[in-house]
């Protein structure tokens, strides 16, 4: 990741923001007011910065989940399902066990949530390794299954008595505290990004993952079990998303509610591609998208622009990041490493 290749995401974001301004102007509002309100709501004071990092935390995890799977040539669109499974299980551990000291209870809830996400993520890995079912479709289908399953768990099994469908509030001993305005969970997400980076860069396992991603056939001839890599990579990817959900439950929301963090799976894709699938690049990319989410309501309030404009900006960012010709033109060289996830379709 040299400076020139970092230029591509920056230019993509700038282009997307410019086109976004055009759309806001066309819809009859002032883009200057809108963007000023967006920044005011996300970066102007410690409180709004805290809110941005709060939004960015699950996004770092969701982005890491996609980026990590990408390294093995897998496209995990199931971050949403893995996240809600991790979130509700962590919530159940958080409220269901009492009289544990904080030092055990909070990490236990996170760990169990992460493992639940890993199990959910491993399913498409196993289906791909053994049956050849493409992970893009199976992960999307599992998102819908997970949403129904967690809805059922929240409304039947672990429901808080009362009219609202949600799980009871977690015990204080399971809560992840804030550090001033900043949620501690954000630091956990940064540690997770560093761990992914080290795993990929500094270990044999990481080397095997990248070999499979670059050329699965060559990796197979080199003696790497491609099936094992598919399953373990998807499990780790699911674990990252599940941990993101657990952090959200135990660090921010305090319980599981249906409709929890909808749309995260797609945002994870934008973030991973914006980071050019580099684990550490995921952090600034997630903060950018997190800031858009945190400032969205201020933008609606002050400039009367619907916060969904940020979704359009995200799609534009994706277009500019994902088209190799634009990238090549900007770099004017062949060094651009093209992103490819379509090579394993149906194989």
């Amino acid at each position, binding site marked *: 990741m040299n400076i020139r290749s970092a230029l591509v995401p920056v230019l993509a974001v700038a282009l997307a923001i410019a086109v976004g301004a055009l*759309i806001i102007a066309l*819809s009859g509002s002032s883009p200057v007011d809108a963007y000023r309100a967006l920044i005011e709501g996300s970066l102007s004071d410690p409180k709004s910065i805290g809110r941005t990092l709060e939004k960015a935390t699950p996004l770092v995890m969701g982005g890491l989940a996609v980026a990590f799977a990408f390294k093995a040539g897998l*496209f995990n*669109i199931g971050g949403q399902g893995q996240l809600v499974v991790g979130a509700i299980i962590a919530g159940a551990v958080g409220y269901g066990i009492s009289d544990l000291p904080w030092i055990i209870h909070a990490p236990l809830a996170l760990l169990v949530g992460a493992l639940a996400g890993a199990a959910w993520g491993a399913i498409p890995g196993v*289906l791909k390794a053994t*049956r*050849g*079912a*493409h992970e*893009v*479709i*199976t992960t*999307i*289908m*599992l998102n*819908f*299954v997970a949403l*129904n*399953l967690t*809805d*059922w768990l929240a*409304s*039947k099994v672990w429901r808080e008595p009362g009219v609202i469908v949600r799980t009871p509030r977690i015990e204080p001993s399971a809560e992840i505290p804030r550090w001033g305005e900043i949620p501690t969970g954000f630091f956990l997400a940064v540690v997770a990004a560093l761990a992914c980076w080290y795993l990929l860069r500094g270990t044999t396992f990481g080397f095997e993952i990248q070999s499979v991603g670059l050329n699965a056939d060559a990796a197979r001839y080199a003696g790497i079990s491609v099936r094992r890599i598919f399953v373990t990579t998807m499990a780790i990817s699911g674990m990252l998303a599940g941990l993101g959900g657990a952090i959200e439950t135990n660090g921010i929301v305090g319980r599981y509610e249906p409709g929890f963090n909808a*749309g995260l799976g*797609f945002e994870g*894709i*934008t973030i991973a*591609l914006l980071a050019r699938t580099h684990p550490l690049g995921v952090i600034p990319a997630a903060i950018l998208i997190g800031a858009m989410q945190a400032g969205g309501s201020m933008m609606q309030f002050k400039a009367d622009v*619907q916060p*969904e*404009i*940020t*979704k*359009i*900006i*995200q*799609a*534009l960012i*994706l*277009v500019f990041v*994902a*088209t*190799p*010709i*634009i990238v090549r033109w900007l770099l004017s060289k062949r060094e651009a490493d*093209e*992103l*490819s*996830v*379509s*090579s*394993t*379709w*149906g194989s």
Partner: protein
Amino acid sequence: MGLVMADDAKGRNVLAAILYRGRWWLVTGALLVAFTLWTAEFHQAQTTAILASTLRHSTPLVLGALCGMLGERSGVINIGIEGQMLMSAWAGFMVASATGDLLTGVVAGVAVGMLMGAVLAGISVGLRGDQIIAGTVLNIAAIGITSFFFTQGRTLPSGKIQPIRLGPLADLPVAGRVLFSNKPITYLTLLLVPVVWFGLFRTTWGLRTRAVGEHPSAAETVGISVVGMRYLNLILGGGIAGLAGAYLSLEAVGSFERGMTNGKGFVALAVMIFGRWNPVGAWGAALLFGYASAVQTQFQFRDWLTSDPQFVGMIPFVVTIVVLAGFVGRARPPASIGQPYSRE
């Protein structure tokens, strides 16, 4: 009938060959009919309701699968069917709501679908971007655009599209309601299945499409424009997905809701694969999936699982996974799928 009764060049009876090749379909179909009759306890109204509901649920899936098929047969994966449908459902509804004319709305939906197809082609064929990422762009953009430019409280002044009864045929028991008193897009879908089949396997366009999908450089050598064929097919497919979108907002529901496609575009991909990239096969697969959704209604009739609707809601998605895991290993996609084409 001449075709069916004839013997082919090797002297085998064509009808017998077709029946043999489709034996698992026949067995599955027979089992489903038996199950339907059993659950409905030979109750005509309920059987009719299930079959009609099966057809209704299958319509957007067949259309989505045909869209995906046109793209994949020419070598381009279209993971953005969901986004194409959603945009068209929204555009069709907004236009029909503003003009008060349903036909204009349907035309707008189809046009927007074609536009989305052109965008997909522009990114994945023109700019040679990754096809799956290009499709993902469509999906994210559709969610953003349809919710950004959607104002709550709009209605259709003329109501939703009404069924057309095909004369005395509509008075037949069971079949009358299931087949002969449907709405226009449903009839059109039933017509499109053989039309696309004929197009793909019996016309020059179809031969060229399949050549481009299997071996693009060979096709280019004999003078077929790979890029041109891929653009054409993605735009045509986009129009079909647009029809599915218009079906959802103007014919099935009669309004637009955020995220109303609810995964149908992805289920359609599974339908396409299960139908082995063949329109008739996809139609059969869509009926099976439609049946999986229609069973929900039956469960309500029988008062099964009504206290746990989430499990019924899972059925179509679990069926998709099981079908993919069971069949995709043996299904073979067009050979050049997923690879951007450049002439060098």
